[in-house]
């Protein structure tokens, strides 16, 4: 009796061929992207999405062409942060065109497809078992979108990852070995512990781990202009054994701007936060320039 490998083709199902075609289409679509940077943490609520959007704005100010892929399909926020919630993706002459923020960032986010407060539905043939295949479905849907988007030439495609150390590794694997990973932490032992788990989860993968950014690194007081500790046990994150690309203080002004879908670069004198983001952007650019 013939073995599997002795039979040519798949008998007509076309499944393997479709998956290969999809992967080829994604590779073609991303061919004009110089650097893919997946921004994750493992920990939720540390400001990944806001950092992603505002880092994108600072990179644009540095003359870079930037796109943002919101990979958090269940908690998408980049459409709101980019001020493109009401802008639909449209068919273009070379593929799907995604909304563009006022400062010029191309943004692909499920948030552009959902009404306020609406969640994605994942219908299942087996009721009460939607959880079994859900992650696979999310990734196949994301792959479908990625295979269609005409990004054009980009210097940076920032990918806003969902929380969860295992998910961080899963998305890094999905994006391929060329995607670098930047982790976001906050100065708390709890958050650092989760980020450390992400580092462990990423270790077997070939993806380059750029380092981490410490977010909410103190409180930028608008009154006196100083930065004061935000967490009671603030201390350095050297236990992560990762390069630190910068420390960004918490600033209510940044939160307000982000809620309005505006970029920090729109503010002429944005203070310590702007300076910290600029430092992260410079270090990020430098980390790629160091490559042979």
């Amino acid at each position, binding site marked *: *009796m*013939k073995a*599997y490998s002795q*039979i*040519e*083709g*798949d*008998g*007509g*199902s*076309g*499944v393997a*061929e*479709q*998956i290969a*075609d*999809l992967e080829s289409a994604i590779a073609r679509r991303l061919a004009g992207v110089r650097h893919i940077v997946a921004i994750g943490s493992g920990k939720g609520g540390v400001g990944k999405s806001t950092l992603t959007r505002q880092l994108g704005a600072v990179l644009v100010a540095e003359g870079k062409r930037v796109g943002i892929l919101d990979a958090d*399909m269940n908690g998408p926020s980049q459409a709101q942060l980019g001020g493109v919630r009401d*802008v*639909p*993706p*449209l*068919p*273009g002459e070379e*593929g*799907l*065109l*995604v*909304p*563009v923020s006022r400062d010029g960032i191309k943004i692909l986010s*499920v948030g*552009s*497809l*959902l*009404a306020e407060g*609406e*969640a*994605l*539905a*994942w*219908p*299942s*043939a*087996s*009721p009460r*078992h*939607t959880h*079994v*295949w*859900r992650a*696979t*479905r*999310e990734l*196949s*849907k994301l*792959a*479908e*979108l990625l295979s*269609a988007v005409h990004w054009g030439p980009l210097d940076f495609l920032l990918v806003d990852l969902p929380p969860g150390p295992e998910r961080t590794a899963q998305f890094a694997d999905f994006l391929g070995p060329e995607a670098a990973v930047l982790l976001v932490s906050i100065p708390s032992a709890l958050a650092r512990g989760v980020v450390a788990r992400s580092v462990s989860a990423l270790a077997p993968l070939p993806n380059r781990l750029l380092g981490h950014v410490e977010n909410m690194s103190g409180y930028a007081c608008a009154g006196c202009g100083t930065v004061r500790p935000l967490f009671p046990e603030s201390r350095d994150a050297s236990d992560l054994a990762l390069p630190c690309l910068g420390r960004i203080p918490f600033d209510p002004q940044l939160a307000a701007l982000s809620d309005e879908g505006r970029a920090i670069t729109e503010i002429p004198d944005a203070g310590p936060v702007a300076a910290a983001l600029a430092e992260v952007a410079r270090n990020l650019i430098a980390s790629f320039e160091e490559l042979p």
Partner: protein
Amino acid sequence: MKFLCVPCDTPMRMRATQESEPGSLAVVYSCPACGYEMAMLTNQHETDMVRSLGVRIGPAAAAAIANPGMPSGMMASFAAGAGETPAGKCPFAAMLGGSTQPEAAAAATPSGPAWTAGALERLEAIPEMVRPMARAGIEMVARENGQALIDEEVLAAARSRFGM
């Protein structure tokens, strides 16, 4: 997955796919040597496994992606506007190559502007998941511009209107 006709030691060929009953997919294979036929009937979990891969089973599967992950409310309201309810659409339509129903996006909304074949082709070339939003935006621009027919010019106007 491949199927082998044991008596003939010949790979079987897919002949047809269809929904056998809610939650189950029937894939019929035949042996090109002896003509023997068999059907693989999936259970709900196997159906979900195929669906999760985002592929269609069978020939003519170009650009074929299963349809989970729809914005529920918006999709429902759009589909209703297009004269097709989610419940009325074959749940396997996006999984069965070569035997799919027309996409919802291909139908004209009863009260909306008409679409040229070329414009519709462009709309259908983008992922199903984003079509309702794209369609709504384009039709809005057509109405703003007093256009009763959506063609390439209206698509270009929509791109311009939304800053693309």
